[in-house]
């Protein structure tokens, strides 16, 4: 058969690829392949000139297929597909060879890397030959949204949708809204009232006709696809366990499940749980809230010590920074001085993360009220012990103070441990439920850390707030709104395109054995008793291809991942 006319484009990605791979050589070798009529190498293929170059060639050389050797398709496949489309070529006539993440960034031997790049390009050229023109399906966008988690993030997002007059289902595991912020009295760095923020949000949410608040409820299952999810929510009716389940239709899901505080008792040398007056930040919040800043014995502490990075930035627990503890600690220093003017506060930290608006000023003011800042090294955290009876304090904290180089002990009657943030224990469950992935610490992974901090790998499912990573209130609120913005955009358009990649049954070949029916996790394959054949409901199919591999009579075809395409690719890489 006559090979379709193919164009090959090798991206230098500045020096990211060119530094290791000889891009011109790759282009030249590609030019030798059957069907390739033009092969070029350029600095940034994804840039405007780069895309225009492709469009121009498609016109001039009447290209039928395009191969772009550049970064991972997970990054720019959509970009180049769009480029093909604007040039009047079916977007699925594109194939990308990943010569950055898989070659130039992981190999340093130029010759070998170039060799591998050539092979990958060869494979891509082989494969693209067998590509077929596919059309994206356009489906209706359901204007309702499911929000999981009734904290500040969840409520903020909910109010955005409600404000636009769209229906929201707000599902909260506990019997009240507010999340972790409801346990806080004042916010850093301006010591504004947290309870005012929460009260405001809760009133607005509960009073809003568009928001269906479900307390004591959990999402049981989520089926369907972007724009057309069906969620089942189980409501705990307290005493007699499982309550009624409701099922709702939603177009998108926002996950705002938040965080859980680090368990301080895991850090043995702080003696939390053993020493009565070593408490966690949240326990101290309660003290402040009740206006009783005192020891377990009811005495007023003369010396108060605050220890940062409990469970965070630590070799044995979490490597990451919990982002809010530093400012919260300064807040406590301030609050202790206010409640107990005669007290002395020492703040034992690693690095003072006062990065945000108003924070450095807050840090300076905290120093001016004579907070004693002591710096310790991550490797060697402080050790708390009981003081001798004749001491004027209850405990002594031994710390190798970095800024003086001295090993000192500081008196303390009350010790506040700044416990970090941790992924909730049910985050794995939630991830599976809504089909998103988690990083090594259990935080949900965004589809791109910079471009797309609130979207996930599963279209239609978004994450906001501290369930993605620790962050403070303003950043959480911004993210919640960002997620809402994304979804409102889709809702405003009313329709969404969904990928044209799904499975198809060739009914002539189908023997009606129904193996595939049980196999499909999305019950997307229907058996027609009449014709005694199975067929795929394309909208439901997520193109995993399990059925394809399993079909004994080879009757099922995975669009865009056909056997021919993959065989061709295999031949390519091994050529």
């Amino acid at each position, binding site marked *: 058969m006559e090979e379709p006319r193919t164009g090959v484009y090798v991206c230098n990605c500045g020096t990211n690829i060119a530094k290791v791979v000889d891009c011109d050589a790759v282009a030249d070798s590609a030019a030798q392949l059957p069907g390739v009529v033009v092969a070029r190498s350029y600095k940034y293929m994804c840039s405007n000139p780069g895309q225009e170059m492709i469009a121009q060639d498609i016109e001039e050389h009447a290209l039928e297929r395009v191969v772009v050797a550049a970064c991972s398709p997970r990054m720019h496949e959509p970009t180049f597909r769009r480029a093909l489309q604007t040039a009047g070529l079916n977007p699925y006539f594109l194939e990308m060879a990943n010569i950055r993440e898989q070659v130039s960034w992981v190999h340093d031997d130029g010759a070998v890397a170039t060799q591998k790049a050539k092979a990958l390009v060869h494979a891509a050229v082989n494969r693209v030959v067998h590509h077929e023109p596919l059309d994206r399906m356009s489906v209706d966008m359901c204007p309702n949204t499911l929000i999981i988690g009734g904290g500040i993030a969840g409520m903020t997002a909910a109010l955005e949708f409600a404000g636009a007059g769209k229906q929201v289902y707000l599902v909260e595991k506990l019997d009240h809204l507010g999340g972790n912020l409801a346990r806080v009295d004042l916010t850093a760095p301006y010591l504004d009232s947290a309870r005012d923020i929460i009260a405001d949000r809760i009133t607005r949410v509960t009073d809003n006709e568009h928001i269906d608040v479900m307390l004591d409820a959990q999402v049981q299952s989520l089926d369907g696809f972007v724009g057309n999810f069906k969620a089942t929510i189980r409501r705990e009716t307290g005493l007699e366990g499982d309550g009624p389940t409701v099922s709702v239709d939603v177009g998108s899901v926002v996950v705002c499940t938040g965080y859980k505080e680090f368990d301080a008792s895991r850090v043995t040398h702080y003696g939390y749980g053993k020493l009565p007056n070593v408490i966690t930040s949240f326990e101290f919040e309660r003290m402040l809230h009740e206006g009783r800043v005192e020891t377990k014995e009811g005495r007023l502490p003369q*010396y108060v010590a605050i220890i940062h990075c409990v469970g965070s930035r630590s070799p044995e627990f979490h490597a990451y920074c919990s982002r809010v503890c530093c400012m919260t600690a300064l807040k406590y220093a301030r609050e202790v001085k206010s409640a107990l003017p005669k007290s*002395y506060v*020492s703040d034992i930290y690693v690095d*003072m993360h006062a990065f945000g608006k108003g924070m450095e000023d807050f*840090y*300076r003011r905290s*120093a*001016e009220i*004579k907070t*004693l*800042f*002591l*710096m310790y090294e991550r490797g060697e955290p402080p050790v708390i012990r009981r003081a001798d009876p004749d001491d004027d304090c209850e405990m*002594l904290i*031994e710390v190798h*103070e970095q*800024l*003086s180089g*001295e*090993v*000192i*002990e*500081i*008196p303390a009657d009350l010790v506040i441990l700044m416990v970090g943030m941790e992924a909730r224990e049910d985050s794995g469950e939630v991830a599976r439920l809504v089909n998103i992935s988690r990083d090594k610490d259990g935080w949900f992974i965004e589809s791109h850390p910079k471009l797309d901090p609130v979207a996930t790998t599963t279209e239609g499912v978004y994450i906001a707030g501290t369930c993605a990573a620790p962050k403070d209130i303003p950043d959480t609120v911004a993210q919640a709104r960002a997620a809402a913005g994304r979804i409102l955009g889709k809702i405003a358009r009313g329709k969404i395109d969904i990928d044209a990649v799904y499975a198809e049954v060739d009914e002539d070949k189908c023997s009606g054995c129904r193996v595939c029916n049980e196999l499909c996790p999305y019950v997307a394959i229907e058996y027609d008793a009449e014709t005694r054949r199975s067929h795929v409901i394309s909208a439901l199919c997520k193109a995993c291809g399990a059925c394809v591999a399993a079909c004994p009579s080879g009757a099922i075809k995975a669009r865009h991942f056909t056997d021919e395409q993959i065989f061709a690719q295999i031949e390519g890489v091994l050529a």
Partner: protein
Amino acid sequence: MAIRANPKLIDELEPYGAEDVVKCYHCGNCSAVCPFSKQPYVFPRKPMRFLQMGLEEKLKSELDPWLCYYCGQCSDQCPRDAEPGETMMSLRRWLTSRYDWTGISRLFYKSWRFEVGAVILVALLTVIGFLTFGFSQGNIDHYDGPNAFLPSSSIHIFDWGLAVVLLALLLSNAARMWWFTTGRDKSLRVPLGAYVTKAYLLPVHFFTQKRYSQCEHKSPWAIHLALVLSYVTMLVLIMFFLRDMASGPAVDWRVHVFGYLATVGLVVSTVVFLRRRIRKSATQYKHSHESDWIFLILLLAVAVTGILQHILHRSDLGLEANMMYVTHLALVVPMLVLEVPFSKWSHLAYRPLAMYLADVRAVALERREPASEPAGELRTA
């Protein structure tokens, strides 16, 4: 063994003038810009740190504050306005009060009222003392000659008596300074030889203040030196040539020429310092502790009364001269008795001693851990 930190020390140092030290967030800028901050004496950040943490014993064993001449560069470039220079100054005040075993110094620095009160008290005692003495054996109209009201011979004896007392006080305090900073540190074994070989530093630093001259601006050093030399000249004249000074009414040029020079030096330098402090003309004059004022005013007053007394005497006005003499003494005595051992003036002894001890300690430290090339240190870090 861990050292106990004392969060309360900060409060204790406030009256000494160290209220801004709390602002320091330890960027290390000051220690790097300071022309005097070199291994093994890196400051002012480190002492500031000890102060923040209330490591009292550490501070007591610090020589650093005395190695600082308060040229103000550190304070000018401090990003947090923590006033490192002023903190060093207040530490010097605090250390003075620690070296002084009588505890008087502490009272002076903590309350200026107390210091002023003491000055007045001593002044009154002096007046009463000398008047009774004068009337008991002389004639108020006679300044010199046979039945002089205050014969130089007896005043001379009084001077020497006073000198001995002051010396005793100063030496005992200096000894304590040595003990805190060098003596008690078991870990560093100071070779006796070092004490001897470095001894020359004492007079050198005392008479030249040469270290001060390393500051960016030279004028403070010049004036300071003028003050010191004038004072010393006066001291020598009074201790050894009092008789010739008091002789007259004719001017005895052999001694008086020195007297004139010294007086001019004293008046000019004190006036200049006072003006700068009033105008806050430079960083180091921005913050003035009460003790600074008391000292300068006292010194100026002493000089002025001295001049007047001299003039009156030369113009043969016995009565007036004697009265001015008594006034003069009423200022000199408290200045010597109170300022030298217990207040600002004491640094004339502590500073040179600190330079000396610093070098002596450096020898010992070098023995303990030979310094290595900084960047190299990092490389292995």
